[in-house]
């Protein structure tokens, strides 16, 4: 039994999943977070998902891998995924890896919910 790594909130038909961890680095941790994230689509059948990065201070390439897989899962389920509240250092990681091109990234949760 692993502890909850995502705070889940339902706002209308949108699921907002906020990462609890400050550091999404350690492999085991990333595995657990990945599984909880995938469960939103695979088990709960949620189609509109916002991932909120307010708490996240560090993120490794392994975590980026999970986000890419999540994006694919949501797209395969004909849903939509948005990322929000990413601090500048982390946004730089997305820019360096050009992942800002594949993810729909919004400044904050309000913007992420707008017209979703």
């Amino acid at each position, binding site marked *: 039994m692993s502890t909850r790594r995502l705070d889940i909130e339902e706002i209308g038909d949108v699921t907002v999943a906020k990462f609890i961890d400050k550091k999404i680095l*350690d492999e*085991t941790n990333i595995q657990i977070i990945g599984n909880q994230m995938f469960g939103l689509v695979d088990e709960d059948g949620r189609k509109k998902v916002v991932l909120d990065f307010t708490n996240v201070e*560090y993120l*490794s390439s*392994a975590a980026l*891998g999970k986000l890419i897989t999540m994006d694919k899962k949501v797209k395969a389920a004909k849903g939509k995924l948005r990322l929000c509240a990413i601090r500048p*250092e982390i946004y730089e990681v997305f820019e*360096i890896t050009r992942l800002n091109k*594949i993810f729909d990234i919004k400044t904050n949760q309000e913007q992420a919910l707008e017209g979703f």
Partner: protein
Amino acid sequence: MPTPEQFEVTIPSDTAAGQAVQERIVNRLEELSFPARDVFGMRLALEEALVNAIKHGNGMDPDKSVHVSCRIDDAMVRVEIEDEGPGFDVSDVPDPTAEENLERPCGRGIMLMRAFMTRIEYNSKGNRLTLEKARGTGDE
């Protein structure tokens, strides 16, 4: 000027042990008031480098170790990470930002290390990595 800190440590092929080394180095940079971006970059580079050494280099083999040597002074941090694996050719790693690779979930670690460090270099065998970060101005 504080005296440079130098240490060598050998850790098992276990990511938790890698985390401990990472903490030690990052804490020292914070004590020396390195800019936040340097600390961020160093933590990220160490995470990527140690996970690569433990997972890809040593294949998580409990009989293999990772050797870390580190030198930190007020202006520069230099870390060498050596695994006991067969090594690899860094030029064989596909470019993760190429259009065809953009949606592949792996292959971004080396690119992030390059972006955040002043210099990174692999030995010819590919089992020893040197990371160097010169103190930034704090306003990049």
